[in-house]
Structure formats: structure tokens, C-alpha cells
């Protein structure tokens, strides 16, 4: 579970200060799907980076299962990311020289898993996203949707507690976008991960349990459907 208390992130740009996140309080329960909307430059990506330990807050506490990410050493945060946090990026961020399987395998390297275990888990992860037959293809040989599926497989192969997705459909066409969101939704239900998804798209945001809107660094919860059953598959 995430507990954010009084979290702020202020960037220094020359003589100016830019408050990307201001005094944010937020609790994200285990297994919850939180969508974060907002205009460009209002702090959505910064919030995601703080949740993932990719950056440190200027002030405040980011508690993840009893550990304050703001106070941990860099090596501890790195270990935490390796074991517990999966990332999905808008631009996929696959290593261009590695095949689909090798890109997924890259997420298991920090965990010290042996070669045969890595092969088994990679194969299973690619199967779960429907790309079992594309394991040896390079990213340049895959479509945008396929590349994002590989990125999802990479994020999930380590069986993380948390999945952080930054505009995962931002670079995809409408049909592919729906496929990816449907896949994410399915995996969220099956695996019970905590999913925080940043998106511009309201139709995607509405599929989440809670929707927050970032505006000038402050988060406001607009929709809370947690008491309602999670959305089922579209009929």
C-alpha cells in the first residue's frame, strides 16, 4: 500500500523554481487501479516517478509497505524497483538491440535468476501478452502495439506488487489502444497488482477504480468506484 504524506517536488530551473507536485496526500490500496489525468506539465509523470523511486521528493513521505522511498539509500530503492515495481512507458523504451525475449529477460537480470528460470518466466510472460511466437523478433520488427505488449511482459515478468504505466497508449492508434487497455485490465484482475496509470484519455481513465486529476501539482480525486465491482470485460 502507498501512503503519500505532504509530498512536494520542486525543480530549480536557473533562478526560477517549478513546483511539479505540491503538498500531496494520497493513499493507494493494494490491488487498486488508480488513473491519473491532467494536462501536460501539471505533474502526472513526476508523481509516477516519485511513486517508482525514480526521483526523490523535495519534502514529504512516500511510504510503500512501511518503507519510506524518500529516506532509502539509492541501492535500496534500486533493489525495491527490481523486485516490486514494474514500469510501462509511452515510448515503450525497449532496448533496440535485444529481441523481445531478451528485453523481457532484462527485467530478471537484477534478481539473479538462473538462465533456465529466466527462460521459463520469459516464455510465460510473452505468452500471457499473446507474443509467444515473436520472442526472437527485434523491436524494429514489431508493430507499436506489439512493442507495448513486450513492455507489459517486461514489467510483469518479475511479478511486481506495483505497475506504473505512463501514457501506455499515447503512441498507439485507437484499435491498438483498446487492445492494450483491455490487456492491462485483464492482467490487473488476474494478478491483483496495484496499477497506477497516467493517461490523457478519459475513456481509459473511466475504466479504473479511481480517477484523480493533477492540476498545477495538486491531485484531486474525481471518481471513486472502489465500492462498485471492478469493470468486467466488454461484451
Amino acid at each position, binding site marked *: 500500500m502507498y501512503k503519500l504524506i505532504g509530498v512536494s517536488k520542486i525543480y530549480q530551473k536557473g533562478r526560477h523554481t517549478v513546483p511539479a507536485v505540491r503538498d500531496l496526500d494520497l493513499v493507494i490500496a493494494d490491488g487498486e487501479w488508480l488513473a491519473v489525468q491532467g494536462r501536460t506539465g501539471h505533474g502526472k*509523470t*513526476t508523481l509516477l*516517478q516519485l511513486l*517508482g523511486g*525514480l*526521483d526523490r521528493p523535495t519534502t514529504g513521505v512516500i511510504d510503500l509497505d512501511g518503507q519510506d522511498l524518500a529516506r532509502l539509500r539509492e*541501492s535500496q530503492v*534500486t*533493489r525495491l*524497483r*527490481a*523486485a516490486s*515495481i514494474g*514500469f510501462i*512507458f509511452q515510448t515503450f*523504451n525497449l*532496448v*533496440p*538491440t*535485444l529481441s523481445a525475449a*531478451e528485453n523481457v*529477460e*532484462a*527485467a530478471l*537480470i*537484477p*534478481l539473479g535468476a538462473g*538462465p533456465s528460470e529466466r527462460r521459463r518466466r520469459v516464455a510465460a510472460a510473452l505468452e500471457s501478452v499473446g507474443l509467444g511466437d515473436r520472442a526472437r523478433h527485434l523491436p524494429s520488427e514489431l508493430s507499436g502495439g506489439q512493442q507495448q505488449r513486450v513492455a507489459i511482459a*517486461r514489467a510483469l515478468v*518479475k511479478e511486481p506488487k506495483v505497475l506504473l504505466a505512463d501514457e501506455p497508449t499515447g503512441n498507439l492508434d485507437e484499435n491498438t489502444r483498446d487492445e492494450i487497455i483491455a490487456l492491462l485490465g485483464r492482467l490487473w484482475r488476474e494478478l491483483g497488482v496495484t496499477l497506477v496509470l497516467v493517461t490523457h484519455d478519459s475513456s481509459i481513465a473511466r475504466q479504473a477504480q479511481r480517477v484523480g486529476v493533477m492540476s498545477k501539482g495538486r491531485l484531486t480525486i474525481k471518481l471513486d468506484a472502489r465500492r462498485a465491482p471492478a469493470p468486467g470485460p466488454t461484451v
Partner: protein
Amino acid sequence: MFFVTYLRRELRRRMRQAVFIALGLAVGVGLVVTVVAASSGVKKAQSAVLQGLYGVGTDVTVTGAPPAAPRSGSAPPKGAQTFQISPGGAQLCTNGVCHNAAGQTVDNLGSQYSAISASAVSKVARLHGVAAAAGGLTLNDSQITIPSDFGKAGSALPQPNSFTVDGVDLGHSGLGPLSSGSITSGHNFTAAESDSDVAVVDSGYAKANKLKVGSTITVDKVHFTVIGIVAQPQSGTPPDVYIPLKRAQAIATTGTQSLKGKVNTIYVTATSASLIPAVQKEISKLLPGDTVTTASSLASQVTGSLSSTAKLANDFGKWLSVLVLIAAFAVACLLTMAAVSRRVREFGTLKALGWRSLRIVAQVMGESVTLGVIGAAAGVGLGFGGAALITRFAPKLSATLATATGLHFQSVGPDGSRSSSPTANHTLLVPMHASVTPGVIALAVVLAVAGGILAGTFASWRIGRLRPATALSRVE
């Protein structure tokens, strides 16, 4: 395996850049290997020349002080033969007694060095650090035939026909110039021949003068029988004729002084190479008036293209290869850092996946070191090629050593008096073999890998400072 796969794919992706870096390192390293090989070839040529002069196993050589050069117009040394040109014609004078010189042949076996008492040899042998010492006589036999019109207007001073003679101590055959040769015909001296008129002749001199075993040669008007022909190492400057030391002492003179019981050269072997400077110092104290040289000090007296090539390889060659190597290192560093800059987002992603900075640094270092190893292999190949080209196409190097003949000429005529003591120059052509040794190969590998590590280190510094959030926000 993932490490190797990632490394291999990354180098293949930026193949052109990788080739450029490896090639730069290869050129730098290849130049170093070639220069070191050439330098070593020149050193070998130099030491072969010196070995030919002093023989194998000689570490220190003692020679009597060279006689002072005569001043123009000065009186000749007492007992020396001089020529005088006067209205009466050309005359040959000895101790003030003159006679007509026209058509006369003068044969002189002289020493180019002052004499040293033979007892000095045993004193030197007893010094600390000396393994063995032997005395010898380094002589020049000069024959001049005075032309019948010598002294008249327009006539030139005659040039001597000379050959070198070495008086060999038969009790210490392991030292001295004869020790480095091998007998190709006949036999070497025996102990019983120490007082006999027998000679061993250098193979080159024998061929030029059509001498063989059993032939007779004249040394200072004494007839010696050739008992053996000796071949010296090709790059040596051997004496032409070897005779027993006792016989040389009996017939040679320095000025008018007999050389009985005297030597003019002492060959010394040190117990170890590290003691040579100390031995040189001790001998200089024992024999203060004499010249004490080691192989390295004699090298400076040798002129010709051998010495200028040595300077070229050591000075210009060394600095050129250092500059090229620095340039290659700089190019490798810059290109590696540029490659890292282009992969900032990739490294940020790996950090987001949980890769530690050290792991990423190891990956980048692996790429740089691999290029270094490839550069080393190519550089060694280039070095071998360079050395082979030098050995194949380099002209033979000349080594020239001037030696005094021991004669003194003086002419007195309408244009004043002139004096000279002709010298005989020994010029040797020495082939140069540039060789690549295992030590040089190891140096090449170390240099190239160091270049790779240096390039990787600069890149690693960049990676270590990389914040994942900043890296991921980079637009590529």
C-alpha cells in the same frame, strides 16, 4: 551470456564507430610496436657492431690514451718517419737522417693507442666484479709506396694501404674480437703457436686478397703463414689479421717505442651486467690515463647512418608514437562518451528496471575493453607488418669508426709546411632486422586495453551521475 549478447549486439549496432575506435587504437599501438621493434633492431645492430669490435662477452674495454693530433707545422715525434719536400726532391727522414724517398715502400705496424703495461691486465683481473681480463694489441699495418714524382708541384700526399692486425692473447681465447668468430677453414691458434709467425685471417679480407690456408702475408716486413680463416658475425667490424700477442709485441711499435711486454687494449668481462658501471669506475681509478669504455659509451663514437637511425628511432619515433597513442585514446574516449550520450534513455530504462549503476558500467566497460582487445590484435598485426616492411626495405645501415694509422706526414714547400696523421676509416654495412618480441606484444595489448578502459571510465562517470528520471525525460 546476457552480458555477452548485449555487448555483441551493441557493438554491431554501432559497427562503424566501433571499427573507427578499434582502428584508431590499432594505429596507435601498431606505431608503438613498429617503433619499439625498429629501436630493438637498431640496438641489436649496434651491439653486433660492438661485439664485432670487442668480441662476445666483453663488457668493458680499456685502451691506452690516443696520441694527440699533431699541430700543423709542428716537429714530428722522435723516431717517426717523415717526408720532406724540398728543391732537392722528396726525401724520407728518420731522426734527422734523410734519403731520397722516390719509389720507396714504407711498411709500418703501429698502435693507434698508447701502450699499457701487461701487468695491468692481472691487476684489472683481480678487481671486484671482474670475471676475466685479457690483454691485446690493436694495430694498424700501413704500407705506402712513395711515387717517383712525389714532392713536385701538383703531386698529392699518398694514401696508405692499410689493414688491421689484432695481437691475440692465446691464454684467454674467450675474450677479444677473435672469440666471436667461427673458423671456416684451417684451424685456430694453439697454445704451442704463441711465439710462431702464424696468422688467422678474416674471411672477408681473405676473399678480397685471395688468401687461403697456407698463404703468406707480410706484416711489418715479417712473413706470416695463414693457418686459418675466421668468419665473424656479419655486422661486426673485425680485424683483418690475427697474430699471436707475443709476436705482435715483438714487431709493433708506438712511435719509436717497442711494445714488448705491453698491450694497448684490455678486454674485461664483469661477473654481472649490473656491476659493469662499478667495474668501469674501478678500472678508471686503477688506470687513470687510459680510456675505459663500455658498449654503451662506445656506441656514441660510431658514426654513420646506424647512429642517426638510432637517434631517429629513440627520439622522433618515440615521441611520434606517444602523440599518436594520445590521439587514439582521445578519439576512443570522445566516441565512447558520444555513444553513451545517445543511450541515456536506454540506461535510464535499465535503472528503472532495477539495474544498478555498477551493472550498467560493467556493460559499457565490457564494450570498451572489447574494442581495446580488437585494437590490440589489429595493432600487433600492423606492428608485425611495419617491422617486416622495415626489415625488407630498409637500406643497410653504415657504421663508421675512425682509427689512427700511427704515421705522420710533413711536407715543406713554397706554400709553407703541412703536417697530417692519416686515419683509416672502418665502415661497415649492417642490415637492420626489426623484430617484434613477446614483451612488445604484451605492451601493445596493455596499451590498447588501457585505451579501452580509459574510454569506458569517462563514460562510466557519466552513467554513475545519471538520475533515472532525468534520463527517461530525454527526447531522442
